[in-house]
């Protein structure tokens, strides 16, 4: 039938178009799905060490802060500082945060590093660019719907929607319903 030929051409070409975005959305989907267990976009590492604070006196001067930074083995410009309490200072550098206890000299350094690809994938998935990307994401969602519907009619006969396809399609609809009624 002629309509099936066009259905299949439509399904094939939209499928090719959707490959890139499907990979981005699905990889990011897995990453973001486990957000309770990890930060899907950044690797956050914390290290603890001791700093000799005997030469520092409160209130700290800019020179004291520079000394603390170099004593911690850090380089780069101090972006800002914040006194968490009278004896606890937080020093911010690019993607690094240093917490120092001014009484004990206990220091904790938090370093943030971008997860290669995942950070970019998640930014696109979670629509950080906004603007035209919002429309692009809507179009992609519409393409997925079209792919799902045209996919039903690619094959005819026993393996098509009137045979095996009907059972598998039914199962695919049933799975989310089971989980919905089980957990919600």
């Amino acid at each position, binding site marked *: 039938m002629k309509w099936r030929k066009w259905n299949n051409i439509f399904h094939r070409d939209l499928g090719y178009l959707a490959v890139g975005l499907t990979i981005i959305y699905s990889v990011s989907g897995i990453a973001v799905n486990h*957000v*309770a267990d*990890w*930060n899907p*976009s*950044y690797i*956050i590492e*914390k290290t603890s060490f001791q700093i000799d604070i005997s030469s520092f006196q409160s209130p700290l001067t800019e020179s004291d802060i520079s000394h603390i930074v170099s004593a911690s083995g850090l380089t780069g410009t101090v*972006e*800002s500082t*914040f*006194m*968490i*309490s*009278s004896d606890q200072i*937080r020093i*911010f*550098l690019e*993607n690094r*945060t240093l917490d120092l206890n001014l009484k004990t000299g206990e220091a904790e350094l938090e370093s*943030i590093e971008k997860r290669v690809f995942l950070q970019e994938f998640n930014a696109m998935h*979670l629509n*950080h660019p906004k603007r035209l990307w919002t429309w692009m994401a809507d179009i992609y969602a519409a393409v997925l719907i079209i792919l799902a519907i045209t996919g039903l009619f690619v094959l005819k006969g026993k393996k098509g929607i009137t045979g095996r396809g009907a059972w598998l399609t039914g199962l695919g609809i049933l799975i989310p319903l089971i989980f919905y009624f089980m957990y919600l």
Partner: protein
Amino acid sequence: MAKRLLFYIILFSFIFAKEIELGQKLTLDSTTAVSTLLENPDTYLNKPVQIAGTVVDVCAHKGCWIEVSGDRPYETIQVKVDDGVIVFPITAKGKNVVAEGKLEKLSLSDDQALRMKKHEAEEKGEEFHEENCKLTESDKTIYRLRGLGAVIK
């Protein structure tokens, strides 16, 4: 080749150096000091306010809150957003922020306050020892901003 590389470095620096706008556009003309909000919270409760300060902490998992420094020593206020509506990047730490939202009050029972402290510790990847936790009034009555929009500079 070197000129072309330099051009791209400058171009990308320009693109990535700009402000990060999150959520709704800021609409208020002036900021309110955090100390003013916390001194007279009832005056501002459920009203839109704008604050400015340094991002001193960010929710490490979902980016669903930031802690913003106030104008008085050691003082901060939390800007909480609905999960996924705004995702504060963890790289915002130490940056200046202007945020808008409505001031809200949380009145927690001892049990709720304890669970919140435990949850916060988990989010920060810190150990929480319930037996050592002594709750204060500020743990049970919390004022925070329900964030609607923010600009990180």
